[in-house]
């Protein structure tokens, strides 16, 4: 589709509300932002920015990272590669460098999906392009930070990540705001391409501010024997978050795993799902979510669609309510479109059973310590296929949730 056609399509969807989540007035947020200068390395970041980016998994020393990308508002202040076989750059530069990239852009996600995708096309936007070349094994993760420095602004991002045939790519992405930023809108479009025999692990940590509206729009295409593993963690307050990333297993024996860990504080609404289309024989999917509320509202969705025989998929959604306030609404959906599919789900929502707390107290733990031990265990999702340093980073982010101060 030509640029003009894309714009035309986007224009038609400019006012189209999303199928899920509250409708947001986009005019309430400004896309204007000052330009930020490039830096040599993340250690050159000002104190608050460095601290906030570290809270979402960024390693300022960059010693254990294969590459780094840092974007403030719409400005890319760093894109660096420390390993061969890897490309890390802004999407605008990548589109100039690679003619073929247009075929990947708005390929997995339609530009007219809703007003947010339309805005990402029509208004000022930037984003990262990360690509592992054929056969490249990227040992350390690539880190990418999307940072918002201005109050009341809209940050529109369009990312494309490609693992070429036989490549292995690990990513950690952190999205956050400056500590003085209270409100804003973050629209993040991300398209992932996992080619034959390739794999991408993508760990995303969000640390927003209390009045932020967040609308990620993500999709992944997984070819034969490919693996896409996505971990999403949001433990800090956010006003309203709605996302429903979707993966398509199009090649035989493709594997997709989504792990989602949410903690909704009072005043936060999180509507987060994971959807997998299993379109090729032997493909497998696992969707696991842990939802924790201390007064906020969570919709924990999952949708598995078995389109061909001999696929296997499982959905597990567990919610834990820590206070009398807040809600958790689990919506697990299984859709078998042919016989001979193996699909299952389990969902459970409730508070911690007092009997369990008393049992741990009989071993000498205080009530708070017993609750913390159970919550820690609840959030300790077993992640298969994640490098050890990323797993550590993920666990650190989980434990750094605000409940940490109260419970852990």
């Amino acid at each position: 589709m030509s640029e003009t056609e894309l714009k035309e399509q986007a224009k038609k969807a400019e006012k189209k509300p999303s199928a899920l989540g509250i409708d947001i007035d986009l005019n309430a947020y400004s896309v204007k932002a000052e330009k930020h200068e490039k830096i040599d390395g993340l250690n050159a970041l000002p104190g608050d920015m460095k601290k906030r980016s570290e809270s979402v998994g960024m390693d300022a020393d960059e010693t254990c990272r294969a590459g780094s990308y840092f974007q403030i508002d719409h400005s890319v202040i760093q894109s660096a590669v420390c390993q061969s076989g890897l490309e890390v750059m802004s999407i605008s530069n990548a589109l100039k460098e690679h003619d073929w990239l247009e075929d990947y852009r708005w390929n997995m996600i339609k530009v007219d999906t809703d007003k947010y995708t339309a805005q990402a096309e029509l208004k000022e936007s930037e984003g990262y392009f990360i690509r592992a070349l054929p056969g490249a094994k990227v040992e350390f993760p690539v880190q990418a930070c999307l940072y918002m420095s201005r109050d009341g602004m809209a940050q529109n991002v369009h990312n494309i990540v490609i693992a070429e045939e036989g490549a292995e790519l690990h990513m950690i992405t952190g999205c956050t705001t400056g500590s003085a930023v209270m409100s804003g809108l973050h629209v993040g479009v991300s398209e992932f391409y996992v080619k034959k025999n390739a794999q991408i692990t993508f760990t995303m940590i969000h640390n927003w501010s209390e009045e932020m509206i967040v609308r990620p729009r993500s999709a992944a295409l997984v070819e034969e024997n490919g693996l896409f593993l996505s971990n999403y963690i949001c433990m800090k307050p956010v006003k309203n978050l709605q996302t429903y990333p979707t993966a398509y297993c199009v090649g035989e024996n493709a594997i997709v795993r989504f792990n989602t860990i949410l903690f909704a504080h009072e005043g936060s609404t999180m509507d987060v799902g994971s959807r997998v289309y299993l379109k090729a024989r032997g493909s497998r999917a696992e969707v696991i979510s842990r939802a924790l509320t201390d007064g906020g509202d969570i919709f924990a969705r999952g949708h598995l669609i078995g389109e061909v025989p001999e696929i296997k998929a499982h959905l597990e959604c567990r919610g834990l309510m820590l206070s009398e306030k807040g809600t958790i609404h689990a919506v697990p959906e299984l859709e078998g479109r042919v016989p001979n599919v193996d699909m299952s789900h389990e969902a459970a929502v409730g508070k911690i059973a007092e009997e369990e707390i008393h049992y741990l107290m009989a071993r000498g733990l205080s009530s708070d310590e017993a609750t913390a031990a159970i919550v820690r265990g609840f959030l300790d999702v077993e992640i298969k296929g994640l490098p050890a340093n990323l797993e550590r980073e993920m666990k650190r982010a989980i434990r750094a949730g605000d409940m940490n101060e109260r419970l852990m």
Partner: protein
Amino acid sequence: MLEIHDLTVMVQNRRVLQNVEMHVSNGETVALFGPNGSGKTSLLSTIMGVPGYRVERGNIIFKGEDITGLAIDERARLGIGMAFQRPPVVRGVKLMDMMRICMDRRGGAGEIDVRRCIEKLNLGEFQDRDINLGFSGGEIKRSELVQLLAQDPDFVMFDEPDSGVDLVSIHLVAKVINELLEKEKSAGRRTKAGLIISHAGHILDYVNADRAYVIMGGNLYCSGNPRDLLEDIKVKGYEGCISCQRQN
């Protein structure tokens, strides 16, 4: 070590224990017999301080301190421990984690001690599993004991440690109970004490109890030699204890 005076306990609106008088001395092992629903577990739970067991009258003295109003964790920290008959599944908390937590509370016993305890009860394959999730009856008993080994309480209560345990495992269970109660030491040198509920008394073939109580309908009926009491119960049934008490 433990004295119970005139204890009456309610669960919701039901009286589960009535005017209970009991004592357990340092180094002593006491058995508790009684039919189903007689109040055995209620007595252990009340001593442990499990919420829901409301003391209406009387008091519980442990090591000279009145613990009647203390919370369950405070009692545990004073040195009371309990192997539950039907403990809950605690999802997410691994047996190994629990062992480490218990050991840390004792003053930082090392990882080697944790592993030694796990090996002692043949629970290697269970150490990384959520506590009690999918455990068989016998595995639950062993899991309870291994946690007590880590906790190392001074007063240890066992709620039917022999139920659901096969003949091979009962040796192992008894060995650990004897260790927890310092049975290897001469009676005068023991500092630990225990209270064992046994339905049929099997465990007492392996663990020597000094005295036994019979409880029925929430009342303690008599105290005496465990073997003699068991024999009487076998011959006359628990009803015999009631008539015996009446004769006294």
